[in-house]
């Protein structure tokens, strides 16, 4: 079979994501081989899969490359300030218990400048799904070292290699009270979609870490200059361990990358449940 026969060009005026993206904003700003395009696609697929009512979906981002995703999605979308997507999302969410609020942002936004909000939102079991695309560095500002950069990783502000310990994001989320925690690499598109869908359908604070490919500002400095190389790296290093103890899933330079669903807890009261309970208590006789 010749190559021409193998690949058939499909001509169509209709794109599967028509109506789900803001067409006026395309083309997006993401670099070639950046995984944010696929993640964006998968988020929409998951929203469709979860059968959420479009009107009831809000997407909130902070600042950074990943933070731009909210603005391409054709839902109520909010591109806020650096690090503050989560508290904005909490305020937005409590105004309508039926609203599904998705926070999508990067590792620097959510875990450096916004780290305090993340741990408290998890503690409160706020009804939001947080998707963090962890690309191990600050992409938009030119590739500085970040809170998830592993030791020995080269970045523009770590010219001799990163020397600090990185966060283990699933463990941080789990220890602060998240009811759902999963991690996938940008390569695992189907599993990622399943996790997004599960996270969206679950009440409370749900968290999915996506290891993103950033050839431009991470890869170039770390012998992974092509998108394909990063995906190959993920492929080679990844190992699925559902239910793994999150203490064991930290990432270092030569370690395996443990992916999978780590936490899925049932029946823990959420922030919304608790606020409703307070309303009932306030109206009880004698109060």
């Amino acid at each position: 079979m010749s190559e021409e026969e193998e690949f058939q060009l499909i001509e169509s005026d209709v794109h599967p994501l028509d109506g789900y993206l803001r067409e006026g904003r395309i083309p997006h700003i993401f670099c070639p081989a950046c995984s944010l395009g696929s993640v964006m696609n998968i988020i929409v697929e998951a929203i469709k899969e979860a059968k959420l009512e479009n009107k009831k979906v809000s997407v909130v981002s902070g600042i950074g490359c990943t933070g731009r995703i909210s603005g391409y999605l054709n839902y109520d979308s909010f591109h806020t300030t650096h690090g503050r997507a989560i508290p904005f999302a909490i305020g937005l969410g409590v105004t309508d218990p039926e609203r599904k609020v998705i926070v999508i942002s990067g590792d620097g936004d959510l875990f450096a400048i916004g780290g305090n909000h993340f741990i408290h939102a998890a503690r409160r079991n706020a009804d939001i799904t947080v998707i963090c695309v962890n690309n191990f560095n600050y992409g938009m500002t030119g590739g500085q070292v970040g809170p998830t950069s592993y030791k020995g990783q080269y970045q523009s502000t770590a010219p001799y290699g990163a020397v600090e310990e990185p966060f283990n994001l699933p463990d941080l989320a789990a220890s602060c009270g998240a009811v759902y925690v999963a991690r996938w690499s940008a390569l695992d598109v189907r599993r990622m979609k399943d996790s997004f869908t599960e996270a969206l359908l679950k009440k409370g604070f749900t968290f999915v870490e996506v290891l993103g490919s950033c050839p431009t500002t991470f890869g170039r400095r770390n012998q992974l200059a092509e998108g394909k190389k990063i995906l190959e790296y993920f492929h080679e290093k990844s190992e699925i361990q559902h239910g793994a103890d999150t203490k064991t899933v930290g990432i270092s330079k030569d370690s395996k990358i443990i992916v999978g669903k780590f936490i899925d807890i049932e029946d823990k009261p959420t922030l919304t449940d608790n606020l409703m309970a307070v309303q009932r208590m306030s109206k009880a006789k004698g109060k």
Partner: protein
Amino acid sequence: MSKKNEDSPEVATGQHYTTGNHAAAEGSLAAGCKFFGGYPITPSSEIAEHMALRLPKINGNFVQFEDEIASIAGILGASWGGVKSMTATSGPGYSLMVENIGLGLMTETPCVIVNVQRGGPSTGLPTLIGQQDVMQARWGSHGDYETIAISPSNVQECFDLALECFNLSEQYRLPVTLLMDEVIGHMSERLVIPPKEELTIISRKKPTDPPDKHLPYKADDSLVPPMATAGEGYRVMVTGLTHDERGYPDLTPEAQDKAVRRINDKIRLNKDKIIKLEEYMLDDAKTAIVSFGTSARAAKGAVNRARKKGIKVGLLRLITLWPFPDEKIDQLADQVDRIIIPEINYGQVTREVERAAHGKTEVKGDFRLGGAIHTPQEILKEIERN
């Protein structure tokens, strides 16, 4: 507040003997506030405490956030969720909020921030009065913007002006600051809350066009666009980036000019409608006192004492601090030989009065640096000094 009144719905109609902080909370509830996000800080905490008590009873929500940054972000989110929202803080907390106040200005998000001022800079005088955040309320966030800040001088005004702050924030779509001070916040006075039907409550203008035709940042002659919020099918697109009428980022000088000019002009061109002043015995005055907040109370006492002595002095009380009443000060400078500004800071309003008086009259500040108020006698001495 009596137990009975705490049990009442949004509007606690009746007579009360209460504090400025509680009155500000009640004014906010009467305005329709349904979400409070805040962080404890002296001397504003009683506002949060009162809202924690009252909001759940009227199906509102109170969230004590992890810091002031989260609080302001949370109330912006709640406002986009379609409810009136507020926070309350003092100087150090306001300092943490200013970046997101800028987000509120750029995205035209109605909400109210109460700043019960204490002495600064830094931790300063946590439990004592200051009026040192006047300039911060105006210029705290980066970039060019106009804003609204209002300063009550008594407990009744804490109620009335908190409500007014909500009305202005909804009408002009921006975060509005109620700039109280520690003394007003903690003093107890009579408060009369009228029946709900006697209150004027303004809510944001809503779009009437269908979602597919709607341009969320296209304004009519009022310069204030109608506000679709989350869940209404408009798929709002909100960003702190410079944006076009669709709300889409547009990082060109032209888009910047259009967007920033409009969010400034919607306040500048409506200054006369926004500004509230109290003029007291100014008609024949040769000396004018310009003051606000707690300082204006002592100033009024000084004017009364001076009048008894036959001195032609009057008081211009700035209820609205921002936008600043330039024209009124300019007129006053034509009329009087001297303007005295008692304020509990090192010259923040004095500087504005100097600017607006255009050198036409003597302008003299009478400063306290925080921790104590002026007495009427001290201001009288200033009036009598030649």
